[in-house]
C-alpha cells in the first residue's frame, strides 16, 4: 500500500468480518479489494451481505493482521493442551448429585 498503483491494477486487500443477527460474534467471511476503507465496507456489503446476513461489518487491511503460524502451532498452543484440570470433567462429583 505504498506507491500509488495505476487504477487498472490491484487495490489493497481487506478481510471482511460479519456479525450475524442476534448478538453473535463477528466472523470472518472472506476478503475484498478496495481503494479505501469506506469503499471496502460497501464492497463487503455487496459481496457478503446481500440477504440480511449481517447487522454489522468489519473490514481490516489484510496486511494489518498478525496470525499464528502452523509451524509453531505445537509449542505455541502447548500451554493450554496438557491442563486437564481446566475442564469440569476433571473433577469428581458424588454419584446422583446434579451439579448443573
Amino acid at each position, binding site marked *: 500500500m505504498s506507491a500509488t498503483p495505476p*487504477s*487498472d491494477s490491484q487495490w489493497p486487500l481487506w478481510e471482511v468480518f460479519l456479525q450475524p443477527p442476534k448478538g453473535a460474534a463477528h466472523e470472518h467471511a*472472506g476478503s475484498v479489494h*478496495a*481503494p*479505501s476503507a*469506506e469503499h471496502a465496507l460497501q464492497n463487503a456489503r455487496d*459481496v457478503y451481505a*446481500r440477504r440480511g446476513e449481517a447487522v454489522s461489518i468489519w473490514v481490516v487491511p489484510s496486511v494489518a493482521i498478525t496470525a499464528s503460524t502452523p509451524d509453531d502451532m505445537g509449542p505455541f498452543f502447548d500451554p493450554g493442551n496438557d491442563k486437564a484440570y481446566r475442564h469440569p470433567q476433571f473433577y469428581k462429583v458424588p454419584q446422583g448429585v446434579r451439579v448443573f
Partner: protein
Amino acid sequence: MADQSTAAAKAPEDAARNAEFEARIARGESIEPKDWMPERYRRQLTRMMSQHAHSEVVGMLPEGNWITRAPNLRRKVALLAKVQDEAGHGLYIYCGTETLGVDRQELIQQLLDGTAKYSSIFNYPTLSWADIGCIGWFVDGAAIVNQTMLAKASYGPYARAMVRICKEENFHKRQGYEIMATLSAGTPAQRAMAQDAVNRWWWPSLMMFGPHDADSPNSDELLRWGVKKKSNDELRQRFVNLTVGQAKAINLTLPDPELALDEATGDWKFGKIDWDEFWRVVKGDGPCNRERLEARRTAHAEGEWVRAAATAHAEKQQRSSTQAA
C-alpha cells in the same frame, strides 16, 4: 509465503512433509492457507478454483443479455438478483484462490487474454426466454450437485466459499424451474419454446461434469487429495437421477431415447454423450466462445473509468485526512 524453491531442494524433508500432508488428508483435516502443501496441490487448486471463478463471471453473460427482455417485473428482479449473485460467487472464489498466493489481477488478466478456461456451458447461446429458465434448472442444478460435493473439499477457503454459494444457488435453480413449469403449462408456443430449450441444453449440461472418469486426467489426484469427493461420472449420474423426475413433473421430455431406469441400481441410464462436441467447445470452437470473451473485455474496458474514479476518490480522501491531522 514460504520459499517453495528452497523447500523443493530439501528432498528428504519434503518426502516427510508429503507423508504428513497425505495423512492429514486421510484424517479428513482441513488444509488452510498457511499450512504446508505439495506444490502440485497448490497448482491444481489454483487451476481448479480460478476456472471455477471465471465460470461464475462468464456465466453472467448469457443471462445478462435477457435482463432487459424479461417478460415481467417479477422475472426481471429475480434475474438481476441471480446475475448479481454470480458476480458475488466469482468474487468469493477469486478471494479463495488468492489465499494460495496468486493475485486476482493476474487471474483476471488470464481470462481477458483468453488463456484461462471456464465452463464450456457458457459458450452456448441463449436464444429464447426459455433458455434462461433452462439454465437455472439444468446449469445451476448441475452446479449445485458439484458444489455440494466441493463444500467438503480438503482446502478450507474453497470449501467455505462453496458453503456460501450453495445457499444461494438453490434460489437460482428454483427460479429457473418455475420459469420452465410456467412455460410448459402455457400456450402451445410457450410449451414448444420450453421443450426446444430442454432439447438444446440437456446434453451440454451433462458435459458440465467433465469427461468420463477413465478420460479425466486430473480426477485421480483430486480425489486422492480430497479436493473432490466424488468422480465426474458419479456426479453426472446423481444429476440425471434428480432431473428425470423434475422433467416429468412439468411435462417436458429429456431428449434421450435411451433414458431408462435400471431397477437394480435405481439409476437412470442415459445415452452416449458427444465428446467430440465437448472438446470442440473446450478448445474454443463453441458457438459463443469469441463473443463471450469479447463481451468480457468490453465490460472490463468500460469499467476502467469507475476504477479510476474510485482510486482518485480514495486518494483525495487520504490527502484531506492527512491535511486535517
